[in-house]
C-alpha cells in the first residue's frame, strides 16, 4: 500500500526533529509551550482559508507570532512561564474565534485543517519534516552547550523568563518549527504525543543528554511505525493510535522502573491503559471485493443516493459515517484503501468534503472524482440569510438562481432541495453507466425509480407547506445550511443562531439580542437546533422568545442507521415533519408517503 510507505517515510523524517526537540522540551519544561504552538495555529488556518493562501503558511506564521509573544511577555515581567503560555494561547484562540465568527464567517473547511493524518502525506509534508530534521540537528550541534547550561541552572523552575537570551529564542523557534512541521501528520491535539512522550519515556531510564537524544529519536520512530502498523491492522485513525501506543510504552517503562516502589499504582496504570487500547481496537471494517464495482462517496447523503442508483451492482463505501462529526474527520486506513481501490468517486463539492482531494492524491487513486455539486439546476449563494429587514417572502417553489457564476460563494448544502437530489441521481446514473456499460439498464431503472420517489417526496412536502400561510413559514435555524430547503418550499430563514459553519464559531450577545428582536417583530414560529451540535443556544433563544423549540434538524449528515432519517428520503421526511410541526405550533406534522 503506497500510502503506508509515505507515512513511514514521514515518521522516519519527523522522528529526528521530534526526538531532538523533545529532549530539549523535557529538559527545559517546554511541554505546555509545544502544545500551545500547535493549538494556536487555528487563527492562522482561519486567515489562510479566508484570504486564500496556503494552510502551511498560516500555521508557520502563527507559530512565529506565538513564539514572539511568549518571548516578549516572559522577558518583561515576573509572570510564570506556564501562565504566559496560557495567556498567549487563549489570546490566539480568541482571535481565531473572532476571525472565524465575525470577520470571515468561515466554513467547515477550516476544521478539517486542524486534523492532520499520517495516511495523507504528500511530498510537501515530507520536505517540511526533512527541513525540521536538519534544523534540529544543526541547532542542537551549535547550541547544545548553551541550552544545556540553562537547563540545569534553573532546575526548580525551568522556564523561558529572567533574562531570556537569543539562545532561548532559538530553542523556542526550533520547537515551534518542529511542532508545526508535525501538524500535518498528527493534528494539533495529538502532536505532543509524537514529540514530547518519547523523550519523556527515555528520560525515565537515562539522564545523559546524548543518550536521551539518540534514544528519543529511535523511540519516536519505533512508536510512530508501530502505531501506524497497528492502525492499519485495526483500521483506526493513526494519530490517536500513535498517542495511545506512546502513552502505554511510557506507562510500561515507568511501571518496570518503579515496580518495587509502588507496584500497585504501576499495575493500575498499565491495566487501565491496556483496557483503553483494547476497547479502541474493536471495530475493524471488513468488506472485500466480490466482483461488484467499488465506489466511494464522501458524505452520508451522497452515499445513500449512489447506493439507490447502483443497487446490487455497486459496493458503496461512504467515508463519513453518521456517527462521526464531519468537522472532526480524520481518515482511517480503510478509507484511504477504499479511495485507492475505487472505480469512481462521488463527492458533494464545496468545502464540506474538500479533504477528499488530499485522499485521492495520496492514495494513488486513478479514479475519476465526480463533483455532484458542479452541475445543479438550483444554486444559491452562501451566507444569504439576512437577520434584519422584512423583504417579501420567497414564493413557494421559487429559486434564487443568482450567484451560480461565483463558484466560491455557492452554498454547498444543495441536497436539501429534492430537485437537486434528482439532478445528482441523473449524474450518478450517467457516471456509473460510463464505467460499467453492462449495468446501464439496471442503473436507468433504479435511477428513474428514485426520481419518481424524489418527485413525489417534493410534491408531498410542497403540499404540506402550502397549507401554512406564507407569512407563518418563518423559522430560525442553528447554522446557515437550510437555504435550499427554505427556497424550495417558500420558507423564510429569518436568521441563524451560529454565525459561521466551523465548530469553533461563537455568536455575539448583540447578534443574538437582535435575532430575538427579529423573531418577535417578524412573528417567527420556531427555532431549530441541529443533530450534530449542542442545542443549548437555540434552546435559550426559543425559551426567551417563547416560540416553539422545534428540536434538531439533520443539517450536514443523515441519521444513524436504525433511525427514520438513515436514508436521504427518510432524512427529508424527518426534516419536513419537524419544520412543519414547528411552524404550525405543533398542530400538524408532514406525512410524506
Amino acid at each position, binding site marked *: 500500500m503506497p500510502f503506508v510507505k509515505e507515512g513511514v517515510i514521514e515518521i522516519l523524517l519527523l522522528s529526528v526533529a521530534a526526538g531532538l526537540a523533545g529532549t530539549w522540551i523535557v529538559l527545559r519544561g517546554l511541554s505546555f509551550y509545544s502544545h500551545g504552538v500547535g493549538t494556536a495555529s487555528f487563527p492562522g488556518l482561519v486567515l489562510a482559508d479566508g484570504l486564500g493562501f496556503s494552510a502551511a503558511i498560516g500555521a508557520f506564521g502563527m507559530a512565529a507570532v506565538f513564539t514572539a509573544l511568549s518571548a516578549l511577555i516572559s522577558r518583561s515581567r515576573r509572570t510564570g512561564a506556564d*501562565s504566559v503560555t*496560557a495567556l498567549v494561547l487563549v489570546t490566539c484562540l480568541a482571535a481565531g*474565534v473572532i476571525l472565524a465568527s465575525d470577520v470571515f464567517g468561515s466554513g467547515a473547511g477550516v476544521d478539517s485543517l486542524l486534523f492532520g493524518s499520517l495516511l495523507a502525506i504528500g511530498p510537501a509534508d515530507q520536505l517540511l519534516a526533512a527541513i525540521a530534521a536538519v534544523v534540529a540537528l544543526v541547532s542542537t550541534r551549535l547550541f547544545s552547550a548553551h541550552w544545556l547550561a540553562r537547563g540545569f541552572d534553573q532546575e526548580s523552575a525551568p522556564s523561558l523568563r529572567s533574562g531570556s537570551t537569543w539562545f532561548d529564542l532559538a530553542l523556542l523557534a526550533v520547537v515551534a518549527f518542529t511542532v508545526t512541521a508535525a501538524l500535518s501528520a498528527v493534528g494539533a491535539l495529538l502532536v505532543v504525543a509524537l514529540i514530547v*512522550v518519547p523523550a519523556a519515556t527515555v528520560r525515565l531510564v537515562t539522564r545523559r543528554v546524548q543518550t536521551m537524544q539518540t534514544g528519543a529519536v529511535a523511540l519516536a520512530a519505533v512508536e510512530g511505525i508501530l502505531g501506524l502498523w497497528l492502525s492499519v491492522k485495526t483500521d483506526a485513525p493513526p494519530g490517536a493510535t500513535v*498517542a495511545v501506543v506512546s502513552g502505554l510504552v511510557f506507562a510500561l517503562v515507568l511501571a518496570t522502573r518503579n515496580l518495587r516502589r509502588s507496584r500497585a499504582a504501576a499495575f493500575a496504570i498499565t491495566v487501565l491503559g491496556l483496557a*483503553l487500547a483494547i476497547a479502541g481496537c474493536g*471495530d475493524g471494517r471488513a468488506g472485500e471485493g466480490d466482483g461488484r464495482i467499488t465506489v466511494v462517496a464522501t458524505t452520508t447523503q451522497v452515499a445513500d443516493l449512489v447506493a439507490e442508483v447502483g443497487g446490487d451492482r455497486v459496493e458503496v463505501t461512504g467515508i463519513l459515517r453518521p456517527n462521526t462529526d464531519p468537522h472532526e474527520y480524520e481518515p482511517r486506513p480503510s478509507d484511504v484503501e477504499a479511495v485507492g481501490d475505487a472505480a469512481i468517486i462521488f463527492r458533494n463539492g464545496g468545502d464540506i468534503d474538500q479533504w477528499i482531494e488530499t485522499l485521492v492524491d495520496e492514495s494513488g487513486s486513478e479514479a475519476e472524482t465526480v463533483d455532484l455539486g458542479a452541475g445543479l439546476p438550483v444554486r444559491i449563494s452562501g451566507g444569504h440569510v439576512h437577520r434584519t429587514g422584512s423583504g417579501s417572502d420567497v414564493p413557494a417553489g421559487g429559486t434564487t438562481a443568482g450567484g451560480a457564476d461565483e463558484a466560491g460563494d455557492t452554498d454547498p448544502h444543495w441536497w436539501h432541495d429534492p430537485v437537486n437530489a434528482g439532478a445528482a441521481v441523473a449524474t450518478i446514473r450517467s457516471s456509473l453507466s460510463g464505467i460499467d456499460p453492462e449495468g446501464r439498464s439496471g442503473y436507468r431503472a433504479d435511477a428513474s425509480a428514485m426520481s419518481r420517489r424524489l418527485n413525489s417526496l417534493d410534491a408531498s412536502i410542497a403540499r404540506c407547506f402550502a397549507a401554512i400561510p406564507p407569512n407563518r413559514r418563518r423559522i430560525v435555524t442553528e447554522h446557515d445550511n437550510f437555504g435550499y430547503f427554505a427556497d424550495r418550499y417558500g420558507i423564510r430563514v429569518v436568521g441563524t443562531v451560529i454565525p459561521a459553519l466551523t465548530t469553533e464559531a461563537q455568536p455575539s450577545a448583540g447578534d443574538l439580542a437582535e435575532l430575538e428582536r427579529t423573531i418577535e417583530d417578524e412573528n417567527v414560529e420556531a427555532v431549530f437546533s441541529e443533530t450534530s451540535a449542542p442545542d443549548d443556544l437555540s434552546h*435559550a433563544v426559543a425559551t426567551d422568545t417563547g416560540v416553539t423549540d422545534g428540536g434538531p434538524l439533520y443539517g450536514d449528515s443523515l441519521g444513524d442507521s436504525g433511525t427514520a432519517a438513515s436514508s436521504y428520503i427518510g432524512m427529508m421526511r424527518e426534516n419536513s415533519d419537524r419544520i412543519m410541526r414547528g411552524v404550525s405550533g405543533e398542530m400538524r406534522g408532514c406525512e410524506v408517503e
Partner: protein
Amino acid sequence: MIDAIFEPLSYGITLRALAEITLIGIVSGAIGCWIVLYELSYSAESLAHGLFPGLVAAALIGAPLLLGGAVGILIAAILVVVAGRMAGESPDTAIAVVITSLFGAGVLMALSPDSPAGLQGLLFGDLLGTTVTDILVAAVIGSAVLVALWLLHERLLAVGFDPGSGPALGVPVGVLNLILLGLVATTILVAVQGLGNLLVAAILVGPAAAARLLTRRVWPMMLAAGAVAVTAGVAGIYASYYLKTAAGASVVIALVLCYLLAAAAAQLRDRTAAVRH
C-alpha cells in the same frame, strides 16, 4: 447612558451569561491564584480534554454523560499527579503524556458505531447558552470549591511557597497536590458546561496572573483576581453586545487586556519606586 447599561439586561441570554461569569469569576479568582502559584496552567488548559474518554465510555454503557465526564476528568487528574510523582518529572511533562494518551484513547473508543456524534460538544457549552441549571450547579459546586480552598489555605500556602516544608508541617505533599488538582478538575467540569473550554482556560489563569503582578500576598491576590475576572467578564459581555463580537472570545480578550493593564501598572509602580530610592 443609563439605557446603554440596562439595555443588555433586558435579554435573558445576556443576564444568564452575566450571572454565570460572575459566579465562575469569583471561584476562579480564588483557585486561579493556586494555579498560578503551583504552576498548573497547563493542567487548567488541558484537563478538559481528559473528560473525553469518560464521556465516550458513559455513552457506550448507557450511563449519564455528566457522570462519565466527571469520572474521566478526575481519573486524568489522578494520573497526572501519580505519573508525575513516580517519574520524578514536572507536572507539565506528566500532563502532556497523560492527556494525549487519554484523548487518543477517547478518539479510538469513539470509533465504536454505538458512540453518538459530536459527543464532546455535549459538555462544552457557550457563554450565551448558559442555562439556569448551569448557574445553580456553578453556585453549589463553586461554593464547595471555595470552602475546600478555605479549609486547605494554610497548607496550600506552606507547600506552595516552600515545597520542602510539607513533611515538616505534617502535610503530605502528594495528597495536597492531588486534592488541589482535583479541585481544579471539578471547577473545569462545572465551568466548561456554561462557558466552553477556551474561556475556562482564560478565566482560570488570566485574572490570577494579573493579580500577582499587583500583589504577592495571597488573600489580596485572590480578591483582586476575583474582581478582575468579574470586571473583564462583564466588560466582555457588554462588548459582545455592542460590538457584535463572539461572546466567549470577547471575554477572553477583555481578560488579556486586564492582564496587560496590570503589567503596565506594575511597571509604572516599580519605576516610581526606583526613582524615589
